[in-house]
């Protein structure tokens, strides 16, 4: 996947737009409680946040097709993320 840090738009490696990340609540990943192998519960909105570190582009597309509002966590330094400007 690719992300533009300035507008937080997320794309697949082939350039398909996935979503624009936006969260009005300032909650950090480390402050969330685990509720699955790669997911955590946000105390601010009680939604499940998916860690994308181990997700392929296909898995991510499948996740967002089923739930376009799915919340994601992406770290700038994870191996499967490329930065675009």
């Amino acid at each position, binding site marked *: 996947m690719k992300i533009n840090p300035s507008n937080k738009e997320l794309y697949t490696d082939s350039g398909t737009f996935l979503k624009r*990340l936006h969260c009005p609540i300032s909650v950090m990943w480390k402050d969330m409680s685990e509720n699955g192998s790669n997911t955590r519960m946000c105390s601010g909105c009680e939604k499940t946040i998916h860690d994308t570190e181990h997700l392929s582009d296909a898995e991510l597309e499948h996740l967002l097709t089923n739930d376009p509002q799915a919340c994601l966590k992406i*770290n*700038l330094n994870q191996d499967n993320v490329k930065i675009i400007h």
Partner: protein
Amino acid sequence: MLFKRLLDIFRTKPNSQTKKGEITCTECGLVYDNTLRFFKREASECPDCQYVKILTDKSFDEINDGLRVIRTIRGETAIKAAKDMGLKLLELRAEVSDEFKVKYKKLQHRKTGEIITIGDFREGNGSEWKTLVNWTSENPSKFFSPFAAYIIPKDLKKGERVFINDVITNHVSGRWNQGDVYRLSKSEATWTGEDFYIDVRSYAIGEFIG
């Protein structure tokens, strides 16, 4: 009054190469074409340095995610004008730290001629792309003046959380393990009574959630 002030600020420089119908912001030097359209659009600020924005009442009514927006003004002229208007200011020296850098490489497709800019070492290694500009690091933040100030609403209470859309001081919003260091340009902050405590975490870009 406002129109007179606008003309004063955006007057055409007599000896410049500005064409008829163009106006120049005396604060940052931006040439703005088509004066008539500028005023018809009811814009009230230089699109580059936003100088005249301080002359409008809207500056104090803006809300972002439920927080009052603190307006930043830059340049000696803007600060002097704000003082003349009796506005309360927090003046700070604006100097971009050398710490911030963003790398890029420009490539051109050998067949289509398409030019792209990439920012990741892992991209653009295919033989169909030729390098136009090799990896270069630049500091993308530039201030046109070392003088800057926040306009402090007179009713701002100690402890009030606000949104600053143009942070003056230098804070790192994120670091990438390929060497890029990003500057925090906007942030939530808390008024301490004398200064703003910048909550870097509110707009940090090391980790994205959403």
